[in-house]
């Protein structure tokens, strides 16, 4: 199933979806050395985002969060790609400077169709997300 969306950051990647119903702040909420969510109140607490397709509604928090995403990438602990319901600037800029493919605004409620653990291909050039299984 291929879903059309909007291209935010270029490149193509695949992986297993890690889905959060809540927004993420990369500054403070994620350990940039391990890629693990460290905020006990977050639904992804103790989950590692390294190598995953990180699916979450949007970013939040300080604009310095873009640099935190960059550091995750430098440490080899970044997600392979990002899918947002609707992008905001912090995560969008973070994805671009870290060269992490990113797509948002999926057609026909496509965002809700991606289940945790699904195998997903994100195409940040064409702005599409394919759910393989």
């Amino acid at each position: 199933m291929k879903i059309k969306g909007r291209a935010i950051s270029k490149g193509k990647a695949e992986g297993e979806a890690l889905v959060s119903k809540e927004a993420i702040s990369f500054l403070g909420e994620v350990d940039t050395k391990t890629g693990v969510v460290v905020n006990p109140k977050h639904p992804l607490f103790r989950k590692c985002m390294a190598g995953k397709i990180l699916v979450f509604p949007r970013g939040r928090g300080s604009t310095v969060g873009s640099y935190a995403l960059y550091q995750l990438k430098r440490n080899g602990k970044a997600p392979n790609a990002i899918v947002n319901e609707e992008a905001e600037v912090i995560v969008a800029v973070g994805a671009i400077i870290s060269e992490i493919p990113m797509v948002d605004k999926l057609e026909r409620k496509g965002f809700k169709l991606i289940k945790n653990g699904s195998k997903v291909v994100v195409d940040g050039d064409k702005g599409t997300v394919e759910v393989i299984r």
Partner: protein
Amino acid sequence: MHLSREEEDILGGEHGAAAAKSMEILLAICKIFGAEKLIPVTSAQISGVSYKTVGDAGLEFLQSFAKDGRVRIPSYLNPCGMDLEEWKRMGFPKDFARKQLRIIQAYQKMGVESTCTCTPYLIGILPKKGEHIAWSESSAVIFANSALGARTNRESGMSALASAITGKTPYFGYHLDENRIAEVVFDVKVKLEDMSDFGALGIYAGGIAKQRVVAFEGMEDFTVDEVKALGAALAASGSVALFFIEGVTSEWRVVGKPERVEFGSRELKETKESLNSSKDAELIAIGCPHCSLEEIKEIAEKLRGRKLKRKLWVCTARKIKTKADKLGLTRIIEEAGGRVVSDTCMVVSPIEDMNFKRTAVNSGKAAHYLPSFCKQKVLFGSLKDILE
């Protein structure tokens, strides 16, 4: 979205990797905010300079961006985390200083002037009415929009850097007339006596206005420094980017029936109380935003022939400090036991790691940020109060 030939070239990498990334950043912002084009800007003012705020991640990013990133327009830095000349004598941690200097070097390599001030408008950087700029320090943004009538959104350090490197900004938000209209009007019913009162008004109004454009009625008799203090506080407690003062600011757009709020002596008193969490302090810090020469004169006059029991930092732009040195003001302040500090301020420097737990300020913005950014208890009052 329409891209010019030049913009296409930058995006395609003909001007280097950092320029291409910068263009990608600006185009993503266009998509997010529905901007249809980029417009030229005449200057960029870049935040994200203190090692304390950007950390190792920011340092690494800036060093990699500086490999081939070069600015195309006059670009200026916000304050960094320490006085670049006096840091050793002031006891800044060595490791912090080493990393801070690397950040400055990366920006310098890109061609950004290390002005290290949040008040570029006090050192001759004065965009004209209607001029499009890309500034990111929130107090400078609100001053440029409101007092100068220039046009800028509240940029992040990265988007301002992207504008510096490409010379462009997305055309939306405060660049457009239609978004420069007041949505909440404050009727000021109390006489504001000094900067701390203006700061308190800003903190109160920003909390109500959130991100909306603000108009003030009933204000009379104030200085540039007081307007500076008001704007900085509005931009700190809210994310206000533009305000009007009746009969003063070059723009005044109040249409329809905006929300109306009164600000009287009770609101002033309660706001000032809410910003106070200490009765004493180890450090008196003045200059958030950075002091003008007039403020330094006033401080020196109050300190002439005195000896302070507490440490005092008077934070200002290096250019202003040089003037204060020549006028003998720095010496008067030093003889009283204080310091005139450049390139930094009490909010972005690591004062919590320098044995300061309580700080006295006359700035609403500093009083708002010091408890969370620097783990300080705050004594908030007028200049006279905090120097006594």
